[in-house]
């Protein structure tokens, strides 16, 4: 039963075109290792360098967003200060394109701002996104936002289609936030 159960779980992932999927506590070390595996996998398949760079860049920005902004964190001291952020990153292919999905819990109080930023980016064309990126590069970082805006613009810039996103309410204080990018 054990093998049967996990085989069907794996098969479900395979059928969705998923190359790999990570769910749980994300750290910079995991980001590095998953990113490295991702680049190797794409290189083995002779993916062109431009696509590899775009997919990798979106992956890094999404994973760092989870690390920084996930509302589901554990922290403590195990000889050194440790903070772990929970979230999900899934990478796969469908219709000859790569897709990268990230998900994490966000505070209800952060939802309107994030929604505004993403809706603004969805409406922009390629040139507008590029100009907006440059404008944000020149600006001092926003309070409390260790570079969130520029990270989202970088993601939008590398995407082949407008970013898809959604918020699923968990309770009155939090949402499950999900974003999908195709390249």
């Amino acid at each position, binding site marked *: 039963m054990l093998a049967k159960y996990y085989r069907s779980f794996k098969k479900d992932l395979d059928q969705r075109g998923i190359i790999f999927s990570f769910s749980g506590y994300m750290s910079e070390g995991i980001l590095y290792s998953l990113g490295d595996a991702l680049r190797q996998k794409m290189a083995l398949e002779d993916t062109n360098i431009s696509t590899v760079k775009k997919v990798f860049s979106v992956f*890094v920005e999404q994973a760092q967003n989870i690390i920084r902004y996930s509302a589901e964190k554990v922290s403590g001291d195990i000889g050194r200060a440790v903070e772990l952020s929970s979230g999900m990153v899934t990478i796969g292919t469908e219709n000859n394109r790569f897709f990268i999905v990230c998900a994490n819990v966000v505070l209800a109080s952060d939802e309107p701002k994030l929604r505004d930023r993403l809706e603004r980016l969805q409406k922009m064309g390629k040139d507008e996104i590029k100009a907006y*990126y440059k404008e944000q590069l020149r600006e001092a970082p926003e309070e409390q936002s260790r570079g969130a805006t520029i990270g989202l613009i970088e993601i939008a810039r590398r995407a082949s289609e407008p970013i898809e996103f959604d918020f699923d309410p968990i309770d009155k204080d939090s949402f499950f936030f999900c974003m999908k990018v195709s390249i």
Partner: protein
Amino acid sequence: MNNLKIAATERSPEVDFDFERGVLVLRGESYPEDASAIFGPIFSALETFLAEGEKREVKMDFDLTYFNSSSAKALMNMFQMLDHAAAAGTKITVSWFFAPDDDTMKEFGEDFSEDLKHVIFNLVAVEDAA
């Protein structure tokens, strides 16, 4: 002043600032957890060096293959520092290296160069910069 040499790590670039010769190199990839921790020491060394005010030639090479958005912000700050120093009379030549098939890095070079008024900027395609 003392040269600044920092070895590359998995997620941060190699820094090779030879202040005596006026040859500064940033090489590799940059997507650290905390960009300010990586770029802080680089900024302060560069700032001190440029403020020394000797009107000599400075060569700065950016040989980067990937950087994340918070590193891009730090690079923008560096370009602003370099351009200010060039405006004040230091002759600064920046070379931005990229692999010929790497459109992203080429475009970043073009983007950064648009804001430079006083620095001499070269966009250099190199086969082995992979």
